[in-house]
């Protein structure tokens, strides 16, 4: 099997031996002559027998495999690029089954001198027995593909994916291949596409270059992918601050307020309870089995949550020793304040409920209302009471007597009430009914009794 290699197919894989085998078999049925292409399987640390399977595999085309410790898809693809010798490199994911015309369509999309990156459709075949998550993914992909197929649609870097992508090898070398710092799932394709766009590469879509995607992940795996995508979205945003990888990353404050509140709560819980995302996965898996009508909506929201869990983990600075202390201090302060505010409010409301009628000062004032109206708008009067400070054991007595005087003044403003005022009129403020005759130094005469121990008196001038 020697000759001019037009296409090198690079398949990164991790722990999916059977899928790789299906892809290799499909690659044996291409319309392109088998001598014109080679297949390189970049094994990213798999230990599930993929290497042995490839060694045994009888391929009509040139097949090679390479193994590296698990470093992520970007590194695996770069390893494949380094050994590829085709003019055009086609990247296929390990769960793809390329249609017979796929490689030829890719090869034809790159005439000599062209600077293009081309993606082919990756529909997910489904039937009634397919799990609901596969239906959900299939609908998402179909909607994306139909958007790509719209006449006049110009591809942006966010339209690109690397599951079925081709471009000339020299272009890949020119831009430096995939960024290997993307060790987790996602965004290495956008990142490459963005650099290609910046290098003046045209993005294209070839409907003939179809590869079926056999989606075999369950919800848990898909949720973990979303989490990884959230993480890598932040890495992408940090690497390219002048743009953003997805509207989702820019849309933390978009969406329904109710969901945002729930999501905030869930993200908060995820911070404190590292196992919380696993509990969500378990809950969703159980729910999935019942197939409720609102399952797509639940998928959408839970996957949104997992995306932000990933983004949050990427945004969080690496843990430092003092950080736990700070978190503890902050939580303590906030909890104390909120708890204390609740306690204060509850206490005040309880006291208000137990209060009977008007407060002491208002009641006191009401006693003086008649007298105040009878007094002239401005003037000075004396003050006579039966509760003058007597000394003795009751230490509170002088204070209470003084308070009664102050309240009398407060009630009678603008009239000035002075205990020592020598004028002819005085205000009588008595507690006992015969107080007028009991406590006063001078012997006043009653001018008018307003009731409740409040009197207007005439004093004999000294």
């Amino acid at each position, binding site marked *: 099997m020697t000759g001019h290699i037009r296409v090198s197919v690079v398949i990164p894989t991790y722990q999916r031996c059977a899928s790789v085998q299906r892809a290799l078999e499909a690659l044996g049925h291409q319309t392109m002559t088998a001598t014109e292409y080679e297949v390189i399987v970049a094994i990213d640390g798999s230990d599930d027998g993929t290497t042995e399977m490839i060694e045994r595999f009888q391929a009509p085309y040139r097949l090679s495999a390479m193994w590296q410790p698990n470093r992520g898809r970007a590194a695996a693809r770069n390893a494949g690029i380094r050994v590829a010798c085709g003019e055009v490199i086609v990247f296929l994911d390990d769960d793809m089954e390329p249609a017979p015309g796929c490689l030829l369509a890719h090869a034809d999309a790159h005439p000599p001198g062209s600077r293009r990156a081309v993606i082919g459709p990756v529909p997910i075949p489904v039937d009634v027995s397919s799990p609901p998550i596969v239906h959900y993914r299939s609908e998402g992909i179909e909607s994306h593909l139909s958007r790509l197929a719209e006449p006049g*649609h110009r591809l942006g870097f966010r339209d690109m994916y690397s599951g079925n992508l081709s471009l000339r090898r020299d272009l890949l070398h020119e831009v430096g291949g995939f960024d290997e710092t993307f060790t987790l799932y996602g965004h290495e394709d956008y990142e490459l596409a963005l650099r290609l766009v910046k290098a003046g590469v045209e993005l294209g879509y070839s409907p003939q270059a179809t590869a079926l995607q056999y989606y075999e992940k369950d919800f848990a795996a898909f949720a973990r992918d979303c989490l990884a995508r959230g993480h890598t979205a932040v890495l992408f945003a940090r690497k390219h601050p002048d743009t953003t990888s997805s509207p989702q990353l820019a849309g933390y404050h978009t969406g329904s307020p109710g969901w945002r509140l729930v999501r905030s*709560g869930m993200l908060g819980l995820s911070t404190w309870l590292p196992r919380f995302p696993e509990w969500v996965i378990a809950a969703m898996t159980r729910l999935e089995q019942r197939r409720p009508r609102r399952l797509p909506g639940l998928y959408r929201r839970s996957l949104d949550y997992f995306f932000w869990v990933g983004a949050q983990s990427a945004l969080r600075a690496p843990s430092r020793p003092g950080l736990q202390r700070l978190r503890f201090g902050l939580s303590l302060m906030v909890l104390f304040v909120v708890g204390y505010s609740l306690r204060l409010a509850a206490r005040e409301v309880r006291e208000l409920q137990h209060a009977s009628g008007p407060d002491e000062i208002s009641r006191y004032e009401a006693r003086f209302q008649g007298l105040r109206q009878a007094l002239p708008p401005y003037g000075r009067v004396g003050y006579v009471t039966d509760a003058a400070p007597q000394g003795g054991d009751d230490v509170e007595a002088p204070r209470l007597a003084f308070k009664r005087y102050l309240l009398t003044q407060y009630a009678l403003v603008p009239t000035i009430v002075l205990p020592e005022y020598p004028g002819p009129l005085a205000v009588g403020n008595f507690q006992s009914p015969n107080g007028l005759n009991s406590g006063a130094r001078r012997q006043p005469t009653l001018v008018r009794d307003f009731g409740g121990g409040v009197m207007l008196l005439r004093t004999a001038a000294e």
Partner: protein
Amino acid sequence: MMPGFLASLVAAVLIGLLSLGCLRWSQAEVLRSRVLLVSLAVGMGLGLSSAVFFLWLCLVGAPSSGFPLSELGVLILLGSVALHARRQRRLRPRPSVTEDAAVSPPNHPLLSLALWLSTGCAMMAFLAHSAAGPQGGWDAWMTWNMHARAIYRGGDHWRAVLTGLPAWSHPDYPLLVPASVARIWTYMGEATQLAPVTVALLFTFATVALLYASVSRLRSRTQGALAALVLLGTKFFILQGTSQFADVPFGFFMLATFALLALPGVWPDDRPRLLALAGVTAGLAAWTKNEGLLLLPAVLLGYGLVVVRARGWPTGLSDARAFAIGLAPVLALVVCFKIWLAPPNDLMSDQGFRQTADRLLEGSRYLQVAGGLTRGFLEVSVQGILGLLLGGYFFCARPAAEGPSRLGARIAITALSLVLAGYVTVLLTAPAPLLATNIRSINRLLLQLWPSALLAYFLRIRTVEEAGLLGPRLSEAGSAVRGSDRGLLPLSEAS
């Protein structure tokens, strides 16, 4: 009654807003800071409208139904000036400050929730406490509401009634709070407790809002929320607010002064305007309580010590000029009140050099004052719990690096230290009969400083973002969105 009540509040807030609008702001960011502007407008509006009311009393006489009309004239005048200023304004769209201070990410949702919950609880506690005791605390009816009644009920004799009140009612105290209450009564046509309760409510929550807004603007919204939370969790602050004393309004103006002195750090183009406003609020502090007359030299000295050292004399002098422009009219009002209306202050009487020196040499006084300060601090900081929490948090978060708010923090710390030193000196030299009374009210003196101390504290320490606790905000990850890429693909669907 209610229309008059509402009209009085609307007019007061409008006076505040239009006074702020009269300034030709350079940075659009200032006008976008709505919480800051509204909280300032509430306090300044009440303060300035009380000054207008006092002028009316001095010039026209008794509070009457003609006053609202004259205030309408003031509003029209301010509105015209504000309109003119708006036309003359050349706003700069972007703030010329460091990014972290100018573009503060939104608050953390859980912190927002805690803030709203605490605000709701504090409001409920305030209203319940006020409903149970609408006359306020002892000093409220004995001093502040008594003065308000003297002004309102005194009619043409208001001056004689006010100055004729017994000495225990302290007729020498400035009139911002009493005049604000009497002004609302004039609008309403009757004296009800709704007015002092409302004035107290507005000042209490405007202080919280101002603290939140200023720290948010100077540091980060998370930091602002934390500062506001701590203030809301200060039970003594909320209950003193309901007591209708003048300490919370005074605390508001002190806080406003320090915040406005710090804000040029992030809005350098509006430096003279912010300093002039700081002058107004410092003047209004002196129009609220006699302690304001101590605050003024402390602010000037503190500002001078920090700014002249950092930026030299020319900046210090031009800043002082701007501050004086704002301060002068309000201070003139206070001086007129002190000269022509107020009797001598009881603290000032019996203060000869010999007596003062003798008192300063009494060791027992120091012990009493230290004990009073400790008890006061414990009371303000919820039996010291908040103090411990803040101390521990400072230890964990550590001081902030150099930034636009550092100078403001230094000014506040220096001036607050000077004010505290002034309070201690006054206490040490107070005549013997007043000492015990004054020591009992140290908690309220400390409460006046509390909002400003929280401002200084939260300006000084690192934000949770800087400390790396929350990391950059989730919303921040996508904040650098530029351009217009099409064919956007939801991530969960991309493979």
